[in-house]
C-alpha cells in the first residue's frame, strides 16, 4: 500500500494547522466583565454550605500561613460539610499560574490577589461577582478606600482582606549621633519635606562616606510608591476620569525635584533606584542606611533575632508630608473565580475571612493591618514588635481615595511599568522638567492602552 512520507513541509503544515485551530478556539473569552446582574445583597443569607474548594495564596510569612490555616480550621468547624483545600504557592509565578488556570479551567476556586493586580482580573470578567452575597451593611463595614479597591463598574468582586503601607524604620543611635533629638511620634507631627531634608542632611554629614541617610522602597514593582510624594505635594498620577496622566504639573515637578535630590545629595545609595536587585529592607539590614522606608509586612523580617536587623535599637516613624500626608496602598484582597463550581461556598468562605474575629486573628499573626472600620482604631496584639505597628496603623489612614482609585485601574501594571522605566531614567541624570514630561507621556500611553 503506497504511503506518503513524512516530509518537513508536511510536518510544518500540520503543525501550523493544529496551532491555528488552537489559536482560533482560544480567541474567545475574557475580553470583558460579565456581572451576574443580581441585586446587591439578594443572596447574602447563604446558609449551610457543602463541598470542597481550593484556596490558593502565597505564603508571605509563617504568620500568614498560620493565619490561613487557622481560618480553614474554623470555617470547617462551622460548616462540617465543607472542605477548604489550602494551596500555598511561591509568590514568584503565582499570578502566571492563576492566569493559566483561568484559561484552562483549572484555576483555584478562591485566590489571594494584591490591590495593584486586582484590576486586571475584574476588567476581564473572570471573578465571581460578590455583589449579591454582600449586604450594604457588610460592604460598608470596610474602610471606604479599601471597599472601593475591590469594586469595578459598581460591582464588588472580592473582599479586602488586609492592607499594608509604608513608614520609616530607623536606627535610634544613628539619628542621635547626627544630633536629631526629636522624632515624630504622632501622625500630625510627621516631618515636613523641609524637616526631612534637614534630617537627611545632618545624617549625611555624620555618616561615613559608604553609609547613607535612608533608602526608599520603590524598587521594581514598588515603583508606584513614588506616587506617595506626588500625593503629598497635592498632585495625582491620573486625571479625575482615570483616562489620562496628570503628572505634568507643579505638584509633579515638586515631587520629582524632591526625589531627584535624594540622589544628587547622596541621601540614598546610588543603586537605590528602580531596576536593581537590592531592596530598601536589604539596605537597612546590611546597615548601609540609617533609615529605610519599609512596609509593615517587613517588620517580622527586621525583628528576626537570627537574621534580622543587627545594627542596634530600631523603631518607626511616619512618612514625611508636604501639603498633605499620603502613603501607598498595599495589601491583598481575596477573590473567587467566576467559574467556580461552588459559588455559595466560595462566597461564604470569603465572608468568613473578613469577619471581625478572623481578621483580627490573621492580622495579629501576620503583623498586617485590618480593613474593617471596627478594627482600624482598635489596638491589635501583634505577634511581632507591636510597639512599632501603631505607626503603620495610623499611617494607613493617609492612604487617600485618589491613591486607591489610581492603584486599582485595570491597566495599572502598564502604568507601573511606565513608572519603572521613566523614574529609573529620571534618577540617572535627567533634568526635572524632562523627567516629568517623560513620566507623564509614558503613563498617559500606558493608561490609554
Amino acid at each position, binding site marked *: 500500500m503506497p504511503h506518503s512520507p513524512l516530509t518537513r513541509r508536511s510536518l*510544518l503544515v500540520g503543525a501550523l494547522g493544529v496551532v491555528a485551530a488552537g489559536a482560533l478556539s482560544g480567541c474567545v473569552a475574557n*475580553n470583558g466583565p460579565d456581572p451576574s446582574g443580581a441585586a446587591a445583597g439578594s443572596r447574602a443569607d447563604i446558609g449551610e454550605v457543602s463541598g470542597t474548594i481550593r484556596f490558593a495564596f502565597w505564603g508571605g510569612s509563617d504568620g500568614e500561613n498560620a493565619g490561613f490555616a487557622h481560618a480553614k480550621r474554623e470555617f470547617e468547624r462551622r460548616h462540617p460539610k465543607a472542605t477548604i483545600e489550602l494551596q500555598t504557592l511561591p509568590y514568584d509565578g503565582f499570578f502566571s499560574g492563576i492566569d493559566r488556570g483561568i*484559561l484552562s479551567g483549572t484555576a483555584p476556586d478562591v485566590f489571594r490577589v494584591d490591590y495593584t493586580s486586582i484590576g486586571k482580573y475584574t476588567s476581564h470578567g473572570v471573578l465571581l461577582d460578590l455583589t449579591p452575597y454582600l449586604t450594604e451593611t457588610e460592604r460598608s463595614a470596610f474602610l471606604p478606600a479599601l471597599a472601593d479597591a475591590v469594586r469595578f463598574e459598581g460591582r464588588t468582586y472580592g473582599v479586602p482582606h488586609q492592607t499594608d503601607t509604608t513608614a520609616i524604620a530607623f536606627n535610634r543611635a544613628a539619628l542621635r549621633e547626627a544630633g536629631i533629638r526629636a522624632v515624630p511620634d504622632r501622625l500630625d507631627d510627621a516631618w515636613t519635606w523641609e524637616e526631612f531634608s534637614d534630617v537627611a542632611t545632618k545624617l549625611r554629614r555624620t555618616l561615613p562616606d559608604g553609609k547613607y541617610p535612608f533608602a526608599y522602597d520603590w524598587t521594581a514593582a514598588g515603583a508606584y510608591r513614588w506616587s506617595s510624594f506626588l500625593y503629598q505635594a497635592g498632585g495625582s498620577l491620573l486625571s479625575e476620569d482615570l483616562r489620562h496622566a496628570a503628572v505634568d504639573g507643579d505638584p509633579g515637578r515638586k515631587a520629582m525635584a524632591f526625589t531627584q535630590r535624594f540622589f544628587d545629595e547622596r541621601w540614598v545609595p546610588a543603586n537605590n533606584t528602580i*531596576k536593581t*536587585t*537590592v531592596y530598601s529592607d536589604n539596605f537597612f539590614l*546590611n546597615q548601609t542606611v540609617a533609615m529605610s522606608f519599609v512596609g509593615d509586612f517587613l517588620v517580622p523580617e527586621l525583628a528576626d533575632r537570627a537574621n534580622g536587623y543587627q545594627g542596634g535599637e530600631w523603631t518607626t516613624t511616619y512618612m514625611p508630608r508636604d501639603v498633605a500626608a499620603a502613603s501607598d496602598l498595599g495589601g491583598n484582597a481575596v477573590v473567587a473565580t467566576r467559574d467556580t463550581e461552588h459559588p455559595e461556598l466560595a462566597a461564604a468562605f470569603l465572608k468568613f475571612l473578613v469577619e471581625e474575629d478572623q481578621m483580627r486573628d490573621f492580622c495579629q499573626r501576620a503583623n498586617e493591618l485590618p480593613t474593617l472600620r471596627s478594627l482600624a482604631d482598635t489596638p491589635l496584639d501583634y505577634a511581632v514588635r507591636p510597639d512599632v505597628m501603631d505607626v503603620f496603623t495610623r499611617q494607613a489612614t493617609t492612604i487617600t481615595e485618589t491613591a486607591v482609585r489610581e492603584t486599582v485601574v485595570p491597566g495599572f501594571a*502598564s502604568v507601573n511599568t511606565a513608572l519603572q522605566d521613566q523614574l529609573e*531614567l529620571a534618577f540617572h541624570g535627567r533634568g526635572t522638567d524632562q523627567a516629568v514630561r517623560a513620566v507623564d507621556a509614558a503613563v498617559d500611553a500606558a493608561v490609554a492602552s
Partner: protein
Amino acid sequence: MTSATERIGGATASARPPRRRSAGGFRASSGAAATAFLVPNVVLIVVFTLLPLVYAAVISLQDLDSLGGTSWAGLGNYAELVTDPVFWQSVANTGVFTLFTVPVGMAIGLGVAVLLNGVLPGRALFRTIIFLPLVVSGVATGVLGAWMFDQNNGFVDDLLKSLGLPAVQWQSSGGWAMTAVILMTLWQRIGFDMLIYLAGLQGVDPAVQEAATTDGASGWQRFRLITFPLLGPSTFFLLVMNLIYSFQVFDTVWAMTRGGPGYGTTTVVSYAYRVAFDEHGPQLLGYGAAVGIVIYLVTLLITGLQWRFTSGRDQTD
C-alpha cells in the same frame, strides 16, 4: 531443457521467493524499527519545538494578554517594534554583550585548554575547577554576581579598595554594570569553551606537530599554523553555540541587574520577558512573541551565514 528450465525455474522459483520474503521482511521490520525510533523524536520535536514556534508566530500577530483577551493585530506588533527605541537599545546591548563574551571567552577557553592539554601536575583538578561554573544555573550565577558586585558591600569593591584602587559603581553605572554581567558570563562559559577545545586538541595528530618541529617551526608557529587551523571544527561549533547563547542571554542579566541601570543592561530577551511575562508588567504576549520571533530569525540568519561561509569545513578538516 524444459525440465531443466522447469527445474531451474522451479529451483529459482523455489529459491527466490524465500529470499524475496526475507528481503521484504527485513525491509518491513527495519521500516517498523525505523518508525519506532523516529516517532518519539518526531513527536517531541513537533510538540516541544515546532508547535511552540508556529504558535509564537501566530501570537505575534495578535494583541494577546495573559487572561486570553485578544484581538488581531496583523503586523502591528512588528511595526511597533521597529519604532521602539528600547528594543533597538536592547539590540545594541545584546551586540556589545555578544562582542565581548564570544571572542574573549573563546580565546581564554583556548588558552586554558592548551595549558591544560600539556603535562601539568593536577591538571584534572584544574580542568574540574574551570568547568564547574558551567554546571551552576544562570540564575545562581546572576545572584552570586549581584552579591560580588554589590557596590556598597560587595567582595569585588572591597578587594579593589584593599589594593588601594577606587571602588567601582557596578550597579549604578550602565557601562560598569554591563562589564560585571560580561565578567560573570565569561566565568561561567569559559569552562565550556575549554572543554570543546580540549576535545579538539586531543584529536590533533602529534605526528604533524613532530613534523613541523623537525622542519624548524617554533612553538608559536606550530600553534598558529598547525594547531589552530586543525581546531577549525571546534572553533566553528563554539562560535555558533556561543553566538546563540549570547543572543539569548537572560537569566544572568535578570538576576544581576533587572536590565538596569536605565536600560544599560537590557538585552533583547530580558526586554521580551519584561513586556510579556513579568507578572507585574504589561503582559503584552503578542508583542513579546514578536520580539521572540525576531530573535529566532536573527539567530537563524547568523547560523545560516556561518554555514554558508564555512560550509564543508568541519568535514574537510
